C-alpha cells in the first residue's frame, strides 16, 4: 500500500471532469422524461467557467467563514473522492482513510456549507442550514449502518479492501444483506445529494429549498466551487454505490486497455444509476419536511435488516 502520485493525479482529474457531466446528464434526462427539452448535458461546465470569471459579491454581514466555506466544501469532497476505488480496486488514497474518513470529510464540508449559509444574516440561509443539518443527522445512522453491513462482511473499513473482498468472494447481487444495504444507501444518496423526494434541486421556492437556500448569497467563483463541490460529492457517493455493489468490473491490471475498459464500464454504471435517480425524481413528489424522517428511518431499518441477515445467513 503506497501512494502513487500518478494515480492521485489521474483520479483527481477524473473526479473534476466527470462530476459536472453526471449533474448535466441527470438534469437533461429529467427534462426529457418530463417532455421538456432541458439544458444540454455540458451546461454545468459552461456554468462553472462563467461563474469562475465573474465578480464576487459578498454580503456586508458576512465574515471570513463565508469566504473559506466554498473551498472547504470543494477540497473535502475532492479528498474524499480519492478514497473511493473508481477505476482500479486500489483507491489512490486508501492508506489515508477509508469509509469512516470519507464520511467524516463529507461531514466537514457540510459543516462549513451550513456555516456559510448562516453567515450572510438572511433567513433563507439559516433555514437551509437548519434543514440540511437535520436531514444529514437522521441520514447518518442509516449511512453508517449500511457501510457497517458491508464492512463487517469484508472485515475492514478500507473501501479498496471491501471492493477486493467482494470481488474475490464471487459476489452476487442476490445476497440479501448487500441488497438491503444497497437500497438503504440509495435512499441516503437521494438525501445527501438533495434530490426529490427529500429536496428539490430545481426549485428556488423558499418553503421547499434546502441546499439551494444556503447558496443564495454566493456568487462568482465562490459559487463555482460550491456547485462543483456538490457535484463531486454526488459523484463520490454514486461511485461508492456502483463500485462496491457491482465491483466485478474494475481494472484488473495496469495496462491502458484495461483502464480504458474500466473507465467505459464505470461511466455506463454511473449512467445506469443516474437513470434510476432520474426516474425516482420524476415519479415522486417532494415529501413534506417532517415526512422525510419516515423515509430515512425506512433506510435505517433496511440497513439494520441487512445486518441481521449477515448474522442469519452466515
Amino acid at each position, binding site marked *: 500500500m503506497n501512494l502513487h502520485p500518478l494515480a*492521485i493525479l489521474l483520479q*483527481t482529474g477524473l473526479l473534476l471532469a466527470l462530476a459536472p457531466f453526471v449533474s448535466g446528464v441527470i438534469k437533461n434526462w429529467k427534462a426529457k422524461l418530463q417532455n421538456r427539452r432541458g439544458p444540454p448535458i455540458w451546461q454545468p461546465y459552461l456554468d462553472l467557467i462563467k461563474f469562475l*470569471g465573474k*465578480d*464576487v*459579491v*459578498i*454580503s*456586508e*454581514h458576512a*465574515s471570513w*467563514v*463565508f469566504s473559506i466555506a466554498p473551498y472547504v466544501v*470543494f*477540497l*473535502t469532497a*475532492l*479528498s474524499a473522492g480519492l478514497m473511493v476505488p473508481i477505476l482500479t480496486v486500489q483507491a489512490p*488514497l486508501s*492508506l*489515508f*482513510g*477509508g*469509509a*469512516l*474518513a470519507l464520511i*467524516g*470529510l463529507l*461531514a466537514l464540508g457540510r*459543516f462549513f456549507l451550513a*456555516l456559510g449559509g448562516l*453567515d450572510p*444574516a*438572511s*433567513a433563507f*440561509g*439559516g*433555514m437551509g*442550514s*437548519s434543514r440540511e*443539518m*437535520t436531514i*444529514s*443527522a*437522521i441520514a*447518518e*445512522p442509516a449511512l*453508517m*449502518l449500511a457501510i*457497517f453491513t458491508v*464492512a463487517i462482511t469484508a*472485515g*475492514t*473499513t*478500507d473501501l479498496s479492501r471491501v471492493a477486493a473482498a467482494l470481488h474475490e468472494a464471487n459476489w452476487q447481487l442476490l445476497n440479501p444483506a448487500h441488497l438491503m444495504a444497497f437500497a438503504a444507501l440509495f435512499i441516503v444518496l437521494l438525501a445527501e445529494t438533495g434530490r426529490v423526494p427529500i429536496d428539490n434541486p430545481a426549485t428556488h421556492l423558499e418553503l421547499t429549498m434546502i441546499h439551494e437556500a444556503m447558496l443564495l448569497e454566493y456568487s*462568482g*467563483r465562490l459559487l463555482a466551487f460550491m456547485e462543483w463541490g456538490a457535484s463531486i460529492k454526488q459523484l463520490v457517493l454514486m461511485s461508492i454505490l456502483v463500485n462496491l455493489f457491482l465491483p466485478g468490473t474494475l481494472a484488473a491490471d495496469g495496462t491502458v486497455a484495461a483502464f480504458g475498459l474500466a473507465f467505459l464500464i464505470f461511466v455506463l454504471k454511473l449512467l445506469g444509476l443516474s437513470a434510476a435517480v432520474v426516474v425516482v425524481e420524476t415519479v415522486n413528489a417532494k415529501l413534506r419536511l*417532517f415526512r422525510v424522517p419516515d423515509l430515512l428511518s425506512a433506510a435505517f431499518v433496511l440497513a*439494520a435488516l441487512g*445486518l441481521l441477515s449477515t448474522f442469519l445467513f452466515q
Partner: protein
Amino acid sequence: MPPGFPLMSAIFINVGLILFLVGTVSSLVLQRRGNLAVAFAFGCSGLAALCGLTAFITFLVAGFSRPIPAYELFPSLVPNVHFSVRIDALGAFFGMIVSLLGVALSVYSFGYAKAFVGRKNVGILGAFFNTLLLATTLVFLADNAFFFLIAWEIMALSAYCLVSFEHEHDETRSAGVLYFIMSHIGTGCLILGFLLLFQASQSYGFETFHALGDRMPPAKRDAAFLLFLFGFGVKAGIVPLHTWLPAAHPVAPSNVSALMSGVIIKTGIYGLTRVSFDFLGAPPNWWGVTVLTIGTISAVLGVLYALMEHDLKRLLAYHSIENIGIILMGLGAALMFLHTHHPVLAALALSAGLYHTINHAVFKALLFLGAGAVLHATHTRNMEEMGGLAKRMPKTALFFLIGAVAISALPPLNGFVSEWLTYQSLLQGFGTTPSLIRLMFPLSGAMLALTGALAAACFVKAFGITFLAQARSQHARDAHEAPFSMLLGQGILTAVCLLLGLFPVQFLTLLDPVTKQLTGEVLSSKLTAGSAWVLSGTAPQGGTVSTLGITLIALCLSSIPVALWWLFARRSRKRIDATWACGQPILQPQMEYTATGFSKPIRMIFKALFRPHREVQREYDYSPYFTTTIRFSAHVEEVFETRIYRPFRRWVWWISRRMRALQAGSIQAYLIYIFLTLLLLLFFAL
C-alpha cells in the same frame, strides 16, 4: 530505565502539590488585595500544574507499567488510614490531563479573574481553584481507599464552593445545592462499595484490591460493581444521573466550568476504569453490556438535549454528557472484550475511550474558555442575543471554530481520531462472540454516527448563531476581543487539539503503559500500518487513517482553486453589498434565524422525547392580520426531571413528613428511643 527517574517524577509531583497549597494559602492571605491574589493564585497553580505535567509525561514516556513504590505524604495517626500516594500508569494518564488543563486554565484565569477584582472576593476564587486542582490530582494518586475518599470529598466540596461563587443569583444557589446533594449520594455509594472491598481484603490499600473481585463471592462483586457504577456515574454525569450537570457547570465562572467539564467529571471515568479493570477482576458479560448501553443512551440523549439549549454554557454542559457517553462506549466494549478473552481488542477499545477522555478534556475546556470570553465581552449566556462576534472577536471565533470542529468528530482533528478508534473496536467486536449480543456493536456504532451528526448540527448552531451574521443585541454590537492572557489560554488548548488530531500514533505511545497495566497488551506498535504517520486498527487490514496525510493532500489539492483563480478570475473584483432582504429596505437582525428556530426541525422529529410546549399570544387592532404585539414562549420538557426526579422528591418529602412525627421534641420520647435501641442492640449482641 535510569534509576533516578521515578525519584524525579515523585519530586516534581511533591513540588507541584506544595505549590498548590502555597497558592491556596497565599490567595486567602491576600484576599484584600485583589490583583495580587490573582497573580499569586494562578501563578502558583500554573507552576504547580506545569510540575505535574512534567512528572506525569516523563513517567508515561519512560513507559513504567509497574507503579513507583507507594510513599506516605504525611504520617497518619489512625490505623488503616494511610495518606499514601502511588504513581501508576492509569493515575499518571489522568494526572496528565488535569495538569495540562491546569496550565492552560491558569494562564486564562489571569485575564478572566481580573474582571471579578473589586466586585467579588477573588482570593476565595483562587484558593478554591488551587484546592480543587490539588484534590483532583490527589484523587488520581491516592493509594488508599480512605485517602481517596477524603480527596474525593475535598474535590466535591471545593467544586461546590466554586459553583456557588456567584451566589447572589438564585439560579446559582439552587444549582450548587443540587450538585452538593447528588455528589454526596454518589459518595455514599462509593463508601459502601469500598466497604465491600474492605470486607474481602481486610485492608484499605489499593495494592491489596488488585484483582480482588476474583476472590469475592459473585453476588458481592456484582453489588460492588453496581455501587461503583452508580457512585462514579453520578460524578461522570451519565444518563439518568446527569440532571445536576447542566445546572451546575454553566453557573460557575467559565474557568471553573472548563475545569469541571474537562476534568472533574473524568474522575468518574477514572474511578470506573480503576475499579472495573484493576480491582474487580475478570468481568462478567453484563457489566460490559450495561456500560455500553448506558454510554450509548447518554451520548444520544446528551446531544439531543444540547440541541434544545440556547444558553451557550448549558449547551456545552449537555455535550459533556454526550462525550462521557462516547467514552463509556469504549470502556463498555473493552469490558466485553475482556470477558470474551480478546485482550488486544480490549486494549484498543480502552485506548479509544481514554483517547476520547483527553480529547474531550481539551476541546471542551477550549469551548468553555471561548464561551467565557464571549460572556466576558457580551455579559450574556443567551445565544439569541449574540451574533456577529466573528468580526468583533476574530481570534476567539477561530479558536471556538476549531474546538467546534474537534468536538463534532470531524477530520482532521482529535475528536475524529478517538471516534475512529471507537468505530474500529466496535466493528471488530462483531466477530468476538457468536451470540446475538454482538448486534449491539454495529447498532451502538450507528448511534455513535447519529450522535456525531447531531453534534455537528449543534455546533453549526452554536458557532453560527453566536459568531456569524448580524449582532442581535446592543451587547453583541459592543463586544470586544478578550485580553491577551485569555487568548493565550485558548491558544494553548487549540494547539493541543491540533497536535492530538494530527499525531495520534505518537500520542498513543503514551497510552502503552496504561493498556499494559490494565489489559496486559502494548498497543502502539500494532496501531501503525508501516509508517509512523498512519494509524490503523489492531488488525492492519481492518482499515487505516492518517489525519496528517489527509491534511497534506488537501493542502496540495488547494493548488487547484489557486490555479483556476489565476486562469479565470485574476481580473475579477470583489464587491461588498447588502444581503437580499426580500424587498425590505433594511435587513434587520430579527430576520435572522434564531437558535430556537434552528433546532426546530429536530425538536419536531423527536417530539415524543421533548414534548415541546408553545404558547403564542397576540394582540391586534381590527383584524388578526395586523398584529400589534406578539409574545411567543416555548420550552421542552426534561423527561428525567418530570418523570423520575420530581416524583422521587415528592416521595422523599412525604417520608420526611411522616418521620417528623418521631421527632416530637419531647425528651421522654427520646429516652424511650434510646432505651429501645439499647434493647435491640443487646438482643443482637446475644
